[in-house]
């Protein structure tokens, strides 16, 4: 009834999600989407943490995920506020047009 899943499967799943996040980060032009792809990568990492935590019967991995979530929440709040500020001043969310650093 309960077929077991090797841990490598979870890791591969995490790798897929992470790589997709990387690809989205590189390809997407909308700054919000880029931000979301970061969250995706974080989630992929969290999955490995939980998988390992389960494997070693250790709660520390879950604590790590908990902290990652907290930091992600803080990051989202500040990041989105920054995005709003950027949008107000530049009227665009396209990162190719947000290149003040260049000059």
């Amino acid at each position, binding site marked *: *009834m*309960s*077929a077991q*899943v*090797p*841990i*490598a499967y*979870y*890791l591969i799943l995490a*790798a*897929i999600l*992470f*790589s*997709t*996040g*990387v*690809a*989205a980060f*590189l*390809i*997407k*032009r*909308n700054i*919000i*989407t880029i931000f*979301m*792809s970061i*969250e*995706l990568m974080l989630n992929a990492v*969290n*999955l490995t943490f*939980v*998988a390992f*935590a*389960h*494997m070693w019967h250790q709660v520390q991995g*879950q*604590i790590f*995920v*908990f*902290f990652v*979530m*907290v930091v*992600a*929440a*803080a*990051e*989202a*709040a*500040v990041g*989105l*506020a920054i*995005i*709003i*500020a950027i*949008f107000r001043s530049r009227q665009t*969310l*396209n990162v*190719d*047009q947000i290149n003040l650093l260049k000059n």
Partner: protein
Amino acid sequence: MQLALFLIFGGLAIAGAINLLLQKHPINSALSLVVVMMSLAVLYWSLGAEFLAAAQVIVYSGAIMVLFVFVIMLLNAGEEEHTHGSRAAYIAGFPGAAAIFCVLSFVFLTESKHLGSANLGGQLSQASNNIAEISSVLFTKLLLPFEVTSILILVAILGAVVLARKEQ
């Protein structure tokens, strides 16, 4: 059942992630990300991390992603437009991501023999007091990091308020 859950929700997560990549409109990407997160929450639950599953739903899907959707709606962000340089990103992006995936999977697969036959699952309705365990570690051994992160959150809130406030 563990395997079934893994296959269904793992597949859903991958589909969501790919959809995030392919969708043009940010709100669709955001919703696909929500799907990913919900699927991951189920996977967490199947791995015996009930508290994290709930936190994933409440914090990630229910708060962070709502915030994203909210901002997208607020800024009324449209579809992405092509600009110069985006083709270069395509050329570099996909192979790069593929390379990273290859390296990662290579590591995991070569390491899998070291990981051994540590199989997962079979503990779906495990009546462990997972939350009690987490909280006892969190509030004793890791109290300082916990407090520090709470300060971090507070600072982030203040920062967000300051940043997003309209200039007078």
